[in-house]
């Protein structure tokens, strides 16, 4: 099963998961990590530990808010060491809902493209 990890400062990640739960129901494949009390090295260690202990051979998407932010950096370094870990920045609800509703329908490689497209489609102005 492909999984999804949201990493953020404060309550952003759990709040996104809660909002998505109200829209699309429970999703057991989504995890969150709060990076506030973790320096860069410890954050990387936590992500690596999660990957090693969670049978993520099917793949993992790490979603973060800010490209270039500290969560993004830690995730980018981990992704370099693991073939089946992809990092997507610009976390929004469309992106997360895309994962939740489509992760069983697509293969890992395709799912990344689909999520990115859905996330970008969610950003618009009227």
């Amino acid at each position, binding site marked *: 099963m492909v999984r999804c990890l949201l990493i953020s400062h404060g309550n952003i990640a759990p709040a996104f998961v809660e909002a998505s739960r109200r829209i699309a129901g429970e999703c057991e494949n989504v995890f969150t990590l709060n990076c506030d009390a973790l320096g860069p090295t410890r954050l990387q260690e936590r992500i690596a530990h999660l990957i090693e202990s969670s049978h993520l051979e099917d793949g993992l998407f790490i979603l973060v808010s*800010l490209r*270039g932010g500290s969560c993004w950096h830690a995730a980018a370094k981990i992704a*370099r060491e693991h073939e089946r870990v992809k990092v997507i920045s610009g976390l929004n609800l469309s992106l997360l809902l895309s994962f939740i509703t489509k992760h069983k329908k697509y293969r890992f490689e395709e799912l990344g493209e689909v999520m990115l497209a859905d996330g970008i489609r969610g950003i618009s102005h009227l």
Partner: protein
Amino acid sequence: MSLEMVRIDDRFIHGQVVVGWCPDIEPDRLILCDDEIASCDWESEIYQDAATEYETSVCTIDGTARLLGDDKTKKERIFLIVSSPAVLVRLMERGVKIERVTVGGMHYHEGKRKIANYVFIDDTDLEHFRYLVRNNVTLEARDVPTCKPVDLTQKLKLR
């Protein structure tokens, strides 16, 4: 070349830098000065990807001293980021002129003591700060532009 900002931050380029300071400073170039990162291609690439709106150079200490003296950066507004005061001492020893240093983040490691929420130092750091102050550098702690600067020369009794 004008050094618009010299920042000590062991996370280098991240949210506070890209979103917090860069719009204020409008640099032509970010220079991340670190021997270890500059010698690793993929890690350099990650930092270059972190602030795509701004030209970013990842350089060794020697490379930074060379780049700052180069014609290429002559008319540029530079935002220099290092991880520790030790790197600044070595840059100054190589002739780089620094007037003001802002400490934005020196995080906890064993043996370091807290002087602000985001600044932890040991005796070596203190010696390096003292070197900077002796060379007429204004030293402040300030993580984001909206935060009030803390005068480190006074706080650490460096004069």
